[in-house]
């Protein structure tokens, strides 16, 4: 017998296929069917699969989720998004033009994927066929079969976009048990510069399953700074995967904060393809209740003199579980590569759990590689010191957690946004969270 989740998606697909954007394109119709078949054949990953060892999804197969119908009203945007100039909003897996704005002077090419599905020339077809065809595990199959929208973004060569582009992914939660999927492609042409802020959040506490897969390509000399604040509802399941390719001298800086969700997987799969390509990837998981977050970072050094720095900080409270897997891979030809990884974690309750796995795969002698992982507790001496000065225990803990996260939190771009993030994380003290120091 086929599991309810798989059967549910098959039935939903059958009902909704003809209404999917681009249904009239035979190649796309076929691609979706093939990928759905592949998903049903493989099923969700279980404990046996090394990459999903601490986050087996098999159990989810007993639940069923419905694809969204019609378009939902977006819940109110969080305050830091009010005043931003560039924002692209997706509600329940669909582009929401009425909530989005991207003035022409932004000099960015943007199209919703749904529109390109319906109407494309040969060059565009090649781009999206590659995008929809990439990846080969269950998550890639599921997402490719069911994603009906997403973003196609391109910054032309040499352009430097001053204002950050805010990408807002949200669930309306207008009914329980929804599933939505998005796929996207972001291209920075040679020497282009872009800042992106990704927001994930929900309009309620209903159960929800979502998947977001983005491909990001940095051509030679391009620079991307990407900040993510994931603040989904307490019953949301989010599976996200970002594949990043960096060509020669390209520079990548990622700051990813996972705060919400019931079960969250965040993957940052980076390939440094050109000489002197650089990746700086940092993240935080701040978990409470029964939250489970699984953060995955992979950096593949393919060329000479590439460099990477990976720093993740986990804070697990109550019965939550923080999982981190960081893989540094240096290919045989990558002489002069430098690669570093640190994973530091705070366990705030005896029922919480942290699993951290640094993995080094070094196939060249002339490289610098370092990694370290720690799991500790709040320092009782520091707690007492603060309390002896009149800070309540709750305040003292919040301050120490804030201090522990400070080297990552100072990377948050604007004070207004940084303050919002810190208050959402229960660290609502103006400092040490206060945006980039001058």
């Amino acid at each position, binding site marked *: 017998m086929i599991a309810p989740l798989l059967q549910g998606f098959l039935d939903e697909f059958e009902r909704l296929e003809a209404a999917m954007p681009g249904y009239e394109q035979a190649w796309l119709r076929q691609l979706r069917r093939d990928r759905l078949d592949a998903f049903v054949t493989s099923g969700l990953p279980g404990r046996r699969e090394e990459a999903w060892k601490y986050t087996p999804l098999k159990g989810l197969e007993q639940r069923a989720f419905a694809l969204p119908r019609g378009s939902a009203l977006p819940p109110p945007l969080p305050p830091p998004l009010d005043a931003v100039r560039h924002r692209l909003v997706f509600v329940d897996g669909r582009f929401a033009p009425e909530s989005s704005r991207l003035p022409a002077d932004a000099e960015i090419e943007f199209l919703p994927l749904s529109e390109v599905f319906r109407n494309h020339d040969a060059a565009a077809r090649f781009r999206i066929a590659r995008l929809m065809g990439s990846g080969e595990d269950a998550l890639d199959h599921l997402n490719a079969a069911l994603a009906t929208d997403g973003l196609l973004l391109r910054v032309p060569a040499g352009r430097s976009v001053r204002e950050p582009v805010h990408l807002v992914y949200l669930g309306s939660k207008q009914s329980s048990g929804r599933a939505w999927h998005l796929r996207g492609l972001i291209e920075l042409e040679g020497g282009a510069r872009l800042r992106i802020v990704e927001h994930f959040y929900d309009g309620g506490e209903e159960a929800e399953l979502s998947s977001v897969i983005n491909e990001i390509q940095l051509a030679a000399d391009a620079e991307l700074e990407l900040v993510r604040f994931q603040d989904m509802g307490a019953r949301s399941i989010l599976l996200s995967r970002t594949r990043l390719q960096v060509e020669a001298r390209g520079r990548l800086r990622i700051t990813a904060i996972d705060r919400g969700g019931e079960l969250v997987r965040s993957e940052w799969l980076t390939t440094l393809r050109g000489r002197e390509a650089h990746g700086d990837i940092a993240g935080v998981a701040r978990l409470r209740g029964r939250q489970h977050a699984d953060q995955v970072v992979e950096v593949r050094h393919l060329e000479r003199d590439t460099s990477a720095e990976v720093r993740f900080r986990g804070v697990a409270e109550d019965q939550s579980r923080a999982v981190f897997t960081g893989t540094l891979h240096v290919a045989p030809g990558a002489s002069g590569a430098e690669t570093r990884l640190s994973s530091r974690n705070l366990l705030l309750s005896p029922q919480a759990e942290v699993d951290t796995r640094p993995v080094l795969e070094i196939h060249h002698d002339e490289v610098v590689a370092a990694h370290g992982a720690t799991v500790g507790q709040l320092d009782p001496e*520091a707690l007492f010191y603060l309390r002896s000065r009149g800070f309540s225990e709750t305040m003292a803990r919040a*301050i120490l957690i*804030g201090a522990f996260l400070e080297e990552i939190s100072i990377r948050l771009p604007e004070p207004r946004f940084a303050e919002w993030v810190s208050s959402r994380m229960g660290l609502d003290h103006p400092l040490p969270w206060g945006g980039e120091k001058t």
Partner: protein
Amino acid sequence: MLEIVDLHVSVGGTPILKGLDLRVPRGEVHAIMGPNGAGKSTLAYVLAGKEGYERTRGDIRWDGKDLLSLAPEQRAIAGIFLAFQYPVEIPGVNNAYFLRTAVNLKRKARGEPELDAVEFLRAARERLRLIGSDDGLLQRGLNEGFSGGEKKRNEILQMLMLEPELAILDETDSGLDIDALRLVASGVNALRSPERAFLVITHYQRLLEHIVPDRVHVLAEGRIVASGGPDLAQRLEREGYGWLAERRRASEALG
């Protein structure tokens, strides 16, 4: 008035304080001297409310109220302050932010208006001048990478800003150079008043030349074994603690 009666305290099951009696009225400065390991810091920690220090017998009262029933932060708000022998380094917490928050927590509890950043800085600078420091320390992480002497000055700065009613100084003089010692002492003297009580723990008579105590007590083996005026400190400086032990043995033999 601080009143300690027959205090017994164990740490990890080991008795450290064994029947300690001490009374410090407001307006007075009492010095506590005694050999290493005697229990001086233990007494300081018990007064401030550190976890893991178990009272097995006896009482501590401040103005007649049971001090041991209060959480450390409640004691701080009630006006108790401990200058730590070994101040803790807390990287990532800005010193100025920390101190302003501490000051405002106390002001709020007393129903006084909070200090804004400008008012705070003005007040802090005044105190810093008193102890011969500039405001460089304020902009750094709390005690982060501070030298021994800087840490001690930072403790005194906190004391001056928090204006406690009972201040306990645990070896604030050790690690200070001669000039710093004088400045720190002048900081303490500036705070002396009929409403405040001080308990100054030290190994050296030199500090007591600058902060002249009303009483000097010797803490040894978990108890106060001798008390006297400032001249007791001078005798200890000259002769050490040996004569006290002999005197005690003699009186025990007689008893």
